[in-house]
């Protein structure tokens, strides 16, 4: 629990049921709108003071779109953006400009987001043109030099141009620019994706220092879950414009309940050749579907490994993209809290997932299972036992290469699969986080 909920729990930035769609136009001369891309479709999130919210998801899931709406570059199609509890759309122009100053963005692509005709000094000082009162005119030269040093660049390079810097250095220029007007919130869109690991750590540590010193809040967008784990206090996972799972960082990382989150986690390469997986990752087939034409029912059903396995269990073929439980094809799951025992107690953000069968994901993928509480989430299907044993239902129809006997590698803490031995008694392997809470 945060010690001081009054100051750290209130949201500096919040979105409610936010949606953003773009028209799809066809035809070269007479452009006609033939449909809409639902880039963000009903997202609610809260960014708390001095905290970091990690936003992960595949390319095209709507992370950057959400970021642009948050900083006011784009207007939402639906929903509200609240700053300090105030609805931005009802603010006066002056108040909105002040907001723009407080919420700054670090862009995804350091190659296109820096004007090639401006020197580094001009780029970093650019925000002062829009927000002249942030730093007095006479102090700006010094401020720029300080900012450059702060992000690990040589202050003597103020007169250089972006092309004279490496991609990683350009990313830092972008961070320096965002910090120029002393914002309270930084929306960082993949700020370290283009950096080498060696430099990545420097920038992340820098962001963490700045947060401690200045009480900054970060929305930290990344596709690298290992990086997000390092910096985030809370995590939200997006798929096709929706948040499919959210919660405190340990809950999401240690007891992920959405099959998509579990697939993402299993796909992260482990820097250890001894733990080289023998094809045990939950490989997702295919690419994410187009947000212009999202699948019916659960948007993840065309790629969901859990749905296939459930279908197989129910005697369906479990092979094609549509061989999934009927519910997955027809009913859109909502984001619901997972109930007690899933890290929800004492958590700042209730752990929630948008999957009809969230409580079965752990049991099915051979990775360590979270213990499911008796009063499991409200959305457990009628034909499913809520307090199912992790190794239940593994008899008929499952993939032949799927081995339920997962165990934890003491060195890495990851699940490793052992070859099945007939005389071996299957043990339930509890999640380390759950063990910890039991010991208390």
């Amino acid at each position, binding site marked *: 629990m945060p010690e001081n909920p009054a100051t750290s729990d209130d949201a500096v930035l919040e979105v409610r049921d936010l949606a953003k769609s773009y028209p799809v136009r066809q035809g070269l001369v007479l452009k006609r709108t033939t449909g809409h891309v639902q880039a963000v479709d009903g997202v609610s999130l809260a960014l708390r003071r001095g905290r970091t919210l990690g936003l992960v998801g595949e390319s095209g899931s709507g992370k950057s779109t959400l970021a642009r709406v948050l900083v006011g570059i784009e207007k939402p199609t639906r929903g509200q953006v609240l700053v300090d509890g105030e609805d931005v759309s009802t603010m006066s122009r002056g108040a909105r400009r002040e907001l723009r100053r407080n919420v700054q963005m670090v862009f995804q692509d350091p190659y296109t987001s820096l004007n090639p005709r401006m020197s580094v000094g001009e780029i970093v000082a650019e925000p002062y043109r829009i927000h002249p009162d942030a730093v007095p005119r006479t102090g700006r030269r010094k401020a720029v030099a300080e900012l450059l040093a702060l992000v690990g660049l040589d202050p003597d390079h103020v007169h250089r141009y972006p092309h004279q810097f490496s991609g990683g250095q350009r990313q830092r220029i972008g961070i320096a620019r965002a910090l120029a007007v002393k914002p309270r919130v930084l929306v960082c869109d993949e700020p370290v994706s283009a950096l*080498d*690991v*060696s430099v990545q750590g420097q920038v*992340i*540590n820098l962001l*963490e220092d700045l947060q401690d010193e200045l009480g900054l809040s970060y929305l930290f967008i990344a596709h690298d879950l290992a990086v997000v784990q*390092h910096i985030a206090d809370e995590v939200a996972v997006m798929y096709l414009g929706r948040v499919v799972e959210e919660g405190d960082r340990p809950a999401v990382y240690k007891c992920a309940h959405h099959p998509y989150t579990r697939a993402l986690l299993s796909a992260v390469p482990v820097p*250890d*050749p001894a733990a080289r997986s023998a094809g045990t990752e939950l490989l997702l087939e295919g690419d*994410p579907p187009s947000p212009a034409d999202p699948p019916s029912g659960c948007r993840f059903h065309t790629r969901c490994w859990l749905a296939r396995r459930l279908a197989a269990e129910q005697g369906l073929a479990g092979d094609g993209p549509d061989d999934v439980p009927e519910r997955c094809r027809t009913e859109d799951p909502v984001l619901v809290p997972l109930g007690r025992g899933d890290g929800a107690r004492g958590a700042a953000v209730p752990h929630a997932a948008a999957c009809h069968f969230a409580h079965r994901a752990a049991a099915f993928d051979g990775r360590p299972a979270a213990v499911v509480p008796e009063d499991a989430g409200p959305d457990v299907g009628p034909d499913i036992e809520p307090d199912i044993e992790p190794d239940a239902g593994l008899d008929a129809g499952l993939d032949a290469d799927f081995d339920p006997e997962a165990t934890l590698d003491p060195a890495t803490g990851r699940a490793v699969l052992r070859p099945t031995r007939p005389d071996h008694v299957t043990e339930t392997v509890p999640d380390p986080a759950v063990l910890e809470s039991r010991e208390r």
Partner: protein
Amino acid sequence: MRGMTGMEIDISGAFDPAGPDDDAQGQVPTERTAGATLLEVDDLAVEFRSDDGAVRAVDGLSYRVEAGRTLALVGESGCGKSVSSLAVMGLLPPTARVVRGSARYRGTDLLALSPAKHRAHAGTHVAMVFQDALAALNPVHTVGYQLTEALRARSGLSRREARRRAIELLDLVKVPNAAGRVDEYPHQFSGGMRQRVMIASALALDPDVLIADEPTTALDVTVQAQVLRLLAEIQAERQMGLVLITHDLGVVAGVADDVTVMYAGRAVEHAPVRDLYAAPAHPYTRALLRSVPRLDAGADGDRLPVVPGRPPVPGRVPSGCPFHPRCDMARDVCRTDVPPLADAAPERSSACFFAAELLGGARA
């Protein structure tokens, strides 16, 4: 796995891989015996002309590629991974030139050939997937057309034959519904699918060696996992030699057999992958490995370990050991003398004066 057998196609038989315009030295054995040396780069150095004089981008790089094995070329941005590969392929920009070293493909030093012969020879037997692959596809041509450009140029395939081959290649890299998608344009493909197209196009001439320059850096983890598995499968099936250029030590751990670590244009460590991760023989490797954020590490509040300082800029490489300003083991000798890449243990080499100490310390 579903549908696998239907995809095992052979693209090597239908045309002469040496090609009509191949040079006289092209009496190349086509069989690949696992472990046979295919490509050997030795003491390669490349310079760029610039306003401040010549700038060394690669300065003494050596590595060996064997059939059926994957060599990872690892190092920070700007250390010369791409430039050295372009030199091997004969594709350096006009401002760059090879100043030293050799690149022997099955005994033939590619760098000693005329530029045209170099490109023809390398283009046939050594293929490269370029770092900016996603931008490399031409938006105005169909995917099928681009896939078979090299094939048509070299073996005079008919349009129909070329289209059939393009479908086979797309199938090979597991693009679903290949026959339907061969006539589509690049913008109709996702990033992951475009990367597959680039890999397919590199495989069109059934190369002995594939150099893949950051083939998954622009991809999502889930798609990255698909593409890496695909590369590993194709490589094993064809006993290709694979050079995987990456800065991601997680990826390296998952797919490489051997690793060459580069720093400031040169190789500083070479080792089988397990040995390298178990006990690095160079302080730079050790620092790199420590700085990888790990999913399996407890993340609560601890700072990410970093390599202090910045990599040197070409043209301003420090004296002595180029790593010395960032090295936590540096001593006086490191500031004055350049440590050569020398044997540090069986199958391993390191360019650090104190490699033995490092390895001994790890064992103790």
